[in-house]
């Protein structure tokens, strides 16, 4: 299966281990990734705040670039997925699309509508199939307890994300976790906000959210949390110790990217998956998953 690959800024920035593990895993499960040349930021919802038209234009441009490749888009970030899905809905309006295409014409690009944009998480469940991944797994993650954490934009608004047509999207992370033999730890925080968007605006509240979610996962006995969102990863991983200090307790929960989890079951080792690049050490959970670290 071939996709126009949209890595997103964070996997090329503050979470390079996500990019690295995606590439490592894709090869093993028969996903061919052709990176969209010249892709730009989706705006992450933040640009949409100050300049919605520029946000939609940049997304339309990415869509047009993928269309020129004749491929559907694969994302690896809940936020990119959500922002693209919402832009995609707005760009179904022909008049609006024409207005934006006028801007794109200078680069000889045109977005004709109807592009498919799918997160790697959904591709696992819908295109590759859990049975196939299971058949490729060289070990079972039996006895490993993992708390799913989705990231807002891959959950809401559910209409733009087509939850009605694909009801499994609601539990996709749990499905993948369980398919690999691990136990999904149900937690209240799993579809809540990690606090990242207000990190620089109201750090106290942002950290309170980090402490709440990581603390909950720890209290429920999770060995790690798993997220399809690198922004959640940045906050839950990078700011966990600061958050724990703020609430005056010990919290120590490694945060795994989705492809790191899949890669572990496929027999890739810790360094290949970039597990050594986390701030909260993944050493213990890697050992428990039987990885060379």
């Amino acid at each position: 299966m071939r996709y126009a690959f949209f890595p997103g800024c964070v996997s090329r920035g503050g979470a390079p281990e996500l990019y690295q593990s995606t590439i490592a895993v894709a090869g093993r499960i028969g996903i061919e990734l052709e990176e969209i040349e010249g892709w730009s930021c989706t705006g992450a919802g933040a640009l949409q705040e100050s300049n919605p038209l520029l946000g939609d234009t940049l997304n339309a441009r990415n869509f047009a670039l993928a269309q020129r490749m004749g491929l559907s888009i694969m994302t690896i970030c809940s936020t990119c997925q959500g922002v693209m899905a919402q832009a995609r809905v707005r760009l179904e309006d022909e008049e609006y699309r024409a207005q934006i295409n006028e801007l794109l014409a200078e680069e000889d690009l045109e977005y004709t509508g109807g592009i498919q944009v799918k997160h790697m998480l959904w591709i696992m469940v819908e295109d590759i199939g859990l049975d196939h991944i299971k058949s490729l797994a060289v070990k079972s993650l039996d006895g490993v307890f993992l708390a799913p954490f989705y990231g807002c934009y891959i959950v809401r608004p559910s209409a733009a994300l087509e939850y009605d047509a694909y009801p499994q999207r609601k539990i996709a992370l749990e499905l993948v976790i369980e398919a690999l033999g691990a136990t999904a730890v149900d937690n209240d925080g799993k579809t809540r906000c990690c606090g990242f968007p207000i990190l620089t605006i109201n750090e106290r509240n942002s950290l309170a959210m980090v402490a709440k979610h990581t603390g909950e996962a720890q209290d429920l006995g999770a060995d790690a949390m798993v997220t399809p969102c690198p922004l959640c990863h940045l906050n839950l991983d990078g700011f966990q110790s600061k958050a724990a200090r703020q609430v005056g307790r010990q919290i120590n929960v490694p945060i795994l990217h989705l492809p790191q989890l899949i890669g572990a079951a496929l027999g890739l080792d810790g360094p290949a998956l970039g597990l050594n690049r986390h701030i909260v050490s993944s050493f213990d959970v890697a050992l428990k998953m039987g990885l060379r670290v």
Partner: protein
Amino acid sequence: MQAKVSVRRFNPDEEQPKPYDQQYDIEVEEHFTVLDALIKVREEVDGSLALRCSCRAAICGSCAMRVNGHAVLACKARVSQHLSDDGEVRVEPAGNQPVIKDLVVDLEPFWNKVRAVEPYLQPSLPEPEAEYLAPNEVMLHLVDVMGCIMCGACVSDCTVLEVDPNFLGPAALAKAYRFVADTRDEEDSKRLGLYNGYGGIWDCTRCGECVAACPKGVAPMDRIMALREKAIESGTPPGGYDGAAYGYRHAEAFEEIVSHKGRLEETMLVVKTLGMFNLPKMLGMLPVGLNAMFHRKMPSPFAPTVPGVNQIRRLAARIKMNKDGAAR
């Protein structure tokens, strides 16, 4: 059809009051709403169950509560659509509001916040002879916002209110937008200044919970984003709350970086948002930054430029020019 209705109860009159779950097994009809089921429980099984309702038609806003963890109007949610595989539905009081008894919450804080945004028209003087007039077009897009029934479902699920009760919250801020967007109201700059304060528009995380919870299509988050845009565009000063100043700079820096580089660079965004010479804040970020560097997470400052970046710059410049032109 059998249903196990599991209700989170709380009785303040007990000696040591604390919440507990109670399950009622009842027969429900296909058309039953959660409210129908609860009323049946109250009438036939347990008269002590407290809940609030009135219109039973999703109009009055009194029956907001959590069903399977998310806020809904109990009179609008069908039992059959919320039953788990083993025939259970979980009912809890609305979140982020003090529980008075069982499913009844105290709306006092809710109303205080609505009052705090000055939810009334402040037109200019002198008064016209008849009514204040507003053209149809400018009011039309406010229909959804004005459809708010003050049920508090959005407040129940707001992720910021969970950690900070001071936040004005989605319902009050949606109401605030309604007056800023009303052409008859003359106090936009005073209002935007007020909403810039601690607990105002900049504290929202953009999590979308309120949009998902609202039964009336008010989309509070979108209104909050529109208020941010208006605050920036109107040149309203950020005021005394640091968070607002960071919010302004974050929005501007984000646009600037993406317009120039095509992609986001987090480090640059943090520096630009907090301000290069904001020593206390920058020092606060330092341990995380160093740690990230140690784990080889920091992107190289010499990253190659994005192919096509010139085109992105041109697009951004053109859109900005049109926008500034329109604003003038």
